[in-house]
């Protein structure tokens, strides 16, 4: 490589730093070559190393390269951490996680003969409760519909006989009111089961599946 080529390459490599810094550095090396003289040019070139080496030393001093790649690395780490947290519901410090996971798995497998039957029983209880709740909700729904029909029938029948059989008619209308009230109560029961108890139990079921892998991590 010739001296001109060296200066030229150095100039383009130094493009990230300010024009003033670049000029200063280029002038220094230009001067250096001139003072060393033509006969020592090859020697100086060899000892300086590549333009990349020289540029790196200048970057280190100017403080340019110290920052840029670091920021990229940090960002990379951040996104990796986010990914970890997204896939793994265990909330741990990102560095501990893989280690803990492995150790925990081994412990869990070794002690599985203790907790597995208990957990299995728990699952069966929860599943049974869900089925029972669903059945109850269905029953109350059927009852609610039946009571609405019955209540309305009593109401209508009562009105029809209002003149011929007033005492009987009034008690029928009253009964109709009571039956409709009960129907509303049953609707509330159905809503209670469908919207609260069954989803709650389902959540519990899902939780009990992940429980062995979660509890220790959170402690």
């Amino acid at each position: 490589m010739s001296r001109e080529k060296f200066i030229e390459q150095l100039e383009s490599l130094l493009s990230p730093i300010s024009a003033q810094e670049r000029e200063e550095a280029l002038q220094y090396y230009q001067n250096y070559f001139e003072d060393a003289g033509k006969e020592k040019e090859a020697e100086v070139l060899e000892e300086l190393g590549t333009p990349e080496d020289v540029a790196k030393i200048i970057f280190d001093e100017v403080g340019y390269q110290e920052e840029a790649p670091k920021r990229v690395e940090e960002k990379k780490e951040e996104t990796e951490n986010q990914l970890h947290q997204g896939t793994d519901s265990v909330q741990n410090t990102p560095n501990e996680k893989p280690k803990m996971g492995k150790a925990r798995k081994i412990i869990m497998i070794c002690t599985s003969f203790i907790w597995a039957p208990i957990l299995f029983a728990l699952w069966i209880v929860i599943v049974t409760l869900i089925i029972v709740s669903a059945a109850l909700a269905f029953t109350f729904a059927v009852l609610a519909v039946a009571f609405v029909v019955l209540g309305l029938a009593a109401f209508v029948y009562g009105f029809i006989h209002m003149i011929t059989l007033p005492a009987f008619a009034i008690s029928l209308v009253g009964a109709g009111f009571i039956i409709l009230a009960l129907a509303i109560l049953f609707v509330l029961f159905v809503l209670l089961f469908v919207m609260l108890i069954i989803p709650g139990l389902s959540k519990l079921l899902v939780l009990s599946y992940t429980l062995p892998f979660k509890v220790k991590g959170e402690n």
Partner: protein
Amino acid sequence: MVFNTGAALLDAIVLAVVSTEKEGTYGYKITQDVRQAIELSESTLYPVLRRLLKAECLEVYDKECAGRNRRYYMITEQGRIKLEEYRSEWKVYTGKVTELFDGGHRPHQDEIEEAVK
């Protein structure tokens, strides 16, 4: 050389070299002068000079020489103060290291031993 030259020592050596030249001196010559004492790669000096310029320990001027501009470096008043600091620090440092190397006459230890007796 087996010993590393840290940034501070390099600064001190360059300041000392430049301070001997009343009219100032230039990059190539500084490199050659420093090399009489320590090993110095040709690409190491520029960052040192830049650092000393930023700290206002050195100042530059351009002088025409054989039809081209040559940049001269001169020590400033601040640079002289800094150099004096380095000199005294160096004396203390090398004194201590020499003492250790020479097998160590340690008055403190002797005094303690005598007090125990």
